[in-house]
């Protein structure tokens, strides 16, 4: 069953120096329970696509349904059924972890008691129990990221959107986060739509990979199939695959994260 389906989804920004076609027509279907890796270099249009799919940004072309709701006609339905973790998170540093988690549950219409219980439960699952009374400002990078994800899960969404979840994390925290994403899908059957510009991350986490470049999908398939098709051997690195598709390499070291 498809939880996300888009056709010709597009967004053009009007800027002082002329129109910028950030997303130029995306056709995509995501199945329930899938972990989809949306891979592309910086500026490929990943964040813009995610912001459209989460109702933050109105598309300038095309259509999409997310979790059974039409993006444009029923944005409130989409919001209730999806969680979104932005690249730089969204917690107030001056507020405690517990208060942010409870508020988040209530913003998604849980009752006070439900929201409080859910905060405890998420803290247990995501290893935040010891940190509940701390101010968000006092968390490490990895802890902050776990909190951001807990916030996105407050209302048990059918789909979780993660924008570059491990950018800026140390290697240890990165692999912890990968485990967490796998756990979320295994435990709750949540569909996970994650963007990344790290090839190893896309390879390690995704059931299916969609490669985007300059606002368009340039390849779509399982990591193995893509490697076989574009680089001739399943042992080829995604780096080789990407090079074969786009004629350009992607090096995470070169990639400077752009905060949007």
């Amino acid at each position, binding site marked *: 069953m498809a939880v996300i389906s888009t056709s010709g989804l597009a967004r053009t920004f009007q800027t002082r120096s002329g129109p910028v076609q950030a997303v130029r027509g995306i056709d995509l279907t995501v199945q329930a329970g899938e972990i989809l890796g949306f891979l592309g270099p910086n500026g490929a249009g990943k964040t813009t696509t995610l912001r459209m799919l*989460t*109702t*933050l*940004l*109105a598309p300038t072309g095309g259509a999409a349904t997310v979790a059974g709701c039409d993006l444009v006609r029923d944005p*409130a339905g989409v*919001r*209730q059924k999806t969680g*979104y973790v*932005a690249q*730089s*998170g*969204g*917690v*107030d*540093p*001056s*507020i405690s972890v517990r*208060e942010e988690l409870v*508020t*988040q549950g*209530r*913003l*998604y*219409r849980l009752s006070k008691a439900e929201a409080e219980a859910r905060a405890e439960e998420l803290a247990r699952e995501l290893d935040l129990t010891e940190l509940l009374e701390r101010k968000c400002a006092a968390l490490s990078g990895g802890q902050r990221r776990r909190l951001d994800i807990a*916030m996105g899960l407050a209302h048990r969404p059918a789909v979780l959107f993660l924008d570059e979840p491990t950018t800026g994390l140390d290697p240890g925290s990165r692999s912890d986060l990968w485990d967490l994403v796998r756990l979320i899908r295994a435990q709750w059957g949540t569909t996970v739509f994650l963007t990344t510009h790290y090839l190893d991350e896309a390879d390690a986490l995704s059931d299916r990979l969609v490669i985007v470049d300059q606002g368009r999908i340039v390849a779509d398939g399982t990591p193995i199939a893509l490697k076989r098709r574009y680089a001739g051997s399943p042992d080829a690195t995604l780096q080789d695959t990407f090079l074969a598709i786009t004629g350009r390499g992607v090096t995470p070291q070169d990639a400077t994260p752009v905060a949007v």
Partner: protein
Amino acid sequence: MTTFLADTALVFGRYARQTLRSKIQILFGALMPVLYLLLYGPLLTGMPLASRGSSWQVLVPGLLLQLGLFGAAFCGFAIIIEKQHGVVERMRVTPVSRLALLLGRVLRDAALFVFQAVLVILVALAMGLRAPLFGIVLGFAFVAAMAVSLASLSYSLAMRVSTPQSFGPLVNAVNMPAMLLSGLMLPMSLAPGWLNVLSHLMPFRYLVDAVRAAFVGDYGGSTMLYGVLVAAALLAVSVTTGTRLFRKAEA
């Protein structure tokens, strides 16, 4: 409707708790008008400012609205910081009504400024203000209306600027002429003809005049009517503007 009210109460609660955590901020806001009362008020006591009542009945309404003008117009600072932390976007992605996202915030602001207005009135009473209780309560209502309007506009403006550094000067550039032209300090009826005419283009003037009328017990005249109409128009325009911003913020 009940969902909308619950949403508004939730957003209000979040920001009210934040305000209550900084007691300094709560008291500090009342400091400027209280200083005016203590150090500037005595200069005016002997002057024939008022056609009816005492100079205090002219000065204090001005100070109340000044509290709203200078306090609420700077509310936007907070949202610039929140925007940088991604808090605004995180709230916009929840199903909470867009109007509630705005109203919860601005009602917190209004509550804060009305509380400060109460402090100002207490000091003013001690210094010699005499005014009817109903008039004073009406004054608080105007402070609340002014706070809601200006805070809404301030949030809208703040969402469009990228840094706090550019926001402050912008607000001051609007506030200074607004303060002078609305006759917050001295009534515009004292002004020469051209200045008086100019000041009629400034919406806040009608609010100040209405509160001054309320403080001398004149509730049924045209001054009060204009004050109420301008306040209602200001509320409608500013809340609509503010809500639209939460609906389609490209920030």
